[in-house]
């Protein structure tokens, strides 16, 4: 039996949204919200784990009361339970404030395996997963391709260039799923019926999670997004560079590279 919890985020189906000149914020009215694509892969992985080892797969998201459609889609894809974390005070949360809310829910849900997408399509921070792991003091493996549970240890494979690395992590642990995993299944007509009739969404607010007002939402966020600007889409492939060595080494190389590209780092 394994208790899997998948953290998901609804993102705009079309990322080419307009930005308000006045507020510098993206205009999201009328947007259709879908599950972040990598998290669909995480849900598929979670369902697979439960299928092989028993237990339950729960999806959880922090969002507005009105936006349950992503959770419904997750239920349609085969998740057993869905939890919506919503509170007026959660608004304006950055990655850290989001991670605090999620980790409180994960503690309450007693998760053995926490799955997330490696990053979201809209904000692209890739921070929330590792932050949650840090707050819960559990190990994390990022950009995973597949997992296998052996007793109380999760074996996680990850593709690095032309190499396939396997990590071992004791339960409970967090795994963020990358794009190397094959595209997940699409919800069937039966799944969509079940998502709205035989399954339901549990709603938890700040009090349910026993969180202090100062630690969540805008209040609890150390960072602010100044503004968004629309720019020309970058053509050509995105460059990817891998740094190797121990943590300090990697950090030093990374800073050197940023400086060589004109980064203003002291």
């Amino acid at each position, binding site marked *: 039996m394994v208790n899997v919890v998948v953290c998901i985020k609804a993102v705009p189906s079309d990322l080419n949204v307009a930005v308000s000149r006045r507020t510098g914020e993206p205009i999201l009215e009328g947007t*259709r919200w*879908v599950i972040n694509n990598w998290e669909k892969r995480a849900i598929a992985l979670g369902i697979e784990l439960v299928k092989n080892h028993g237990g339950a797969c729960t999806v959880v998201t922090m969002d507005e009361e009105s936006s*349950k*459609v992503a959770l*419904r*889609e997750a239920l*349609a894809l085969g998740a057993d339970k869905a939890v919506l974390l919503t509170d007026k005070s959660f608004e304006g949360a950055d990655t850290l404030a989001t991670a605090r809310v999620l980790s409180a829910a994960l503690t309450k849900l007693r998760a053995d395996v926490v799955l997330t997408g490696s990053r979201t399509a809209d904000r692209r921070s890739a921070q929330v997963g590792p932050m949650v792991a840090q707050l819960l003091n559990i190990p994390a493996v990022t950009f995973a391709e597949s997992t296998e549970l052996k007793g109380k240890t999760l074996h996680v494979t990850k593709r690095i260039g032309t190499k396939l690395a396997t990590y071992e992590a004791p339960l409970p642990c967090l795994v963020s799923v990358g794009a190397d995993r094959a*595209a997940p299944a*699409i*919800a*069937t*007509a*039966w*799944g*969509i*019926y*079940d*998502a*709205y*009739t035989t399954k339901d969404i549990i709603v938890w607010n700040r009090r349910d999670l026993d969180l202090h007002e100062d630690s969540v939402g805008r209040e609890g966020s150390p960072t602010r997004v100044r503004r968004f600007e629309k720019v020309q889409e970058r053509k050509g492939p995105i460059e990817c560079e891998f740094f190797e060595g121990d943590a300090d080494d990697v950090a030093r190389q990374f800073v050197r590279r940023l400086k060589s590209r004109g980064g203003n780092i002291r």
Partner: protein
Amino acid sequence: MVLEFQFTEQQELFRQSVREFIDHELRPIMPRGFTEGHEFPWAIVRKIQKQGLMGVPIPREYGGAGLGEVGYCIMLEEMARLDGGIATIVGAHTGICVVPLWLFGTEEQREKYVRPLAEGKAIGAFGLTEPEAGSDAANIKTTAVKDGDGWRINGSKIWITNGDVADYVMVSAVTDPALGARGGVTTFIVEKNFEGFKVVGVEDKMGIRLSTTAELQFTDMWVPDSCVLGNVGEGFIAALTALDGGRVSLGVGNLGGAHAILNRTIQYARAREQFGQPIGKQQAIQFMLAECAAEIWAARAACYHAAQDVENYYHMVAHGKSVPRPYRAKVSRQTAMAKIIGSETAGRVIDRCLQIYGARGFAEGFDDLEAAFRDHIINEIYEGSNEIQRLIIGRELYSTGEFIL
């Protein structure tokens, strides 16, 4: 009178999942252009079956998806965006075979036939039309004579969609010549392995070529009593009830196909340059596009309205509630209207779009314009020709003396 109509969140999610499924799973394996031969597209249909799309309006307890007639229309609209032939396969199976089985079948029949059909483990067909009974559907010559614990059927059926591949075919036959259509026709559930059942041939058609159309022959075919759908003598009403839903989903499907073609045409009009600018800048082209958009919008709203009424109507029939006669007449009238405006709007749209594409659209395979043009012809012919639909509406108008909205 309720004039508002809004898709629920569940319906929107369903549409999205169907669209995603079609784009990712079906579109890459679709044959293009004028396909040779008339092979049933098993690879495509198997995927549709696994996705749960062969029993969308059928309740969950009988293996369907329980998404109602509106959900079914949503699916068919999306399917028709892909291909008219594929939409016809799914439509004939669901709308006029599985639906009447569910509405009029006994609990045993629902378990034995509706479940595998709705779960996508079997394929169904519906056989009403005969060489001498097309628009004059009451003139069927296939006979069923009582023989022991069953019936002996003789006759033939033509233009049967899925007839060559179906596991189960709904066959209407005359059980009492004296009574005629009202009480003298019975629908039988025929299994393909019944002795005396034969697929005589498959048609070669100008359009919807991925859908197969068969001629069936029954020679001294014995069918047990347990295969009588509903009651003896109720075959015609079962057929007509199924056709109500069939017509409205057909109207919506036609519009889905036309919408897809219109969107492609808008892109083409923006890209194709003549006289030093995109042809889409010409008012002559913009007017045609505008008319297409306006007509699709209006027709689609009307069709979904009718679909909602069909959903209520079917709910009443399935639960054995008596349906007031005026309501039944209203549903029939509305679905007849939906079929006319859906198919004829689609016809006009595709015609204009082909004109905008010019010779490019006339050439085989380019952006599927040529296929859409060949496909749309049948829409005004099958499931009751548009002339018969007009007859249904006109008769009612004449007898009531006014058009009641």
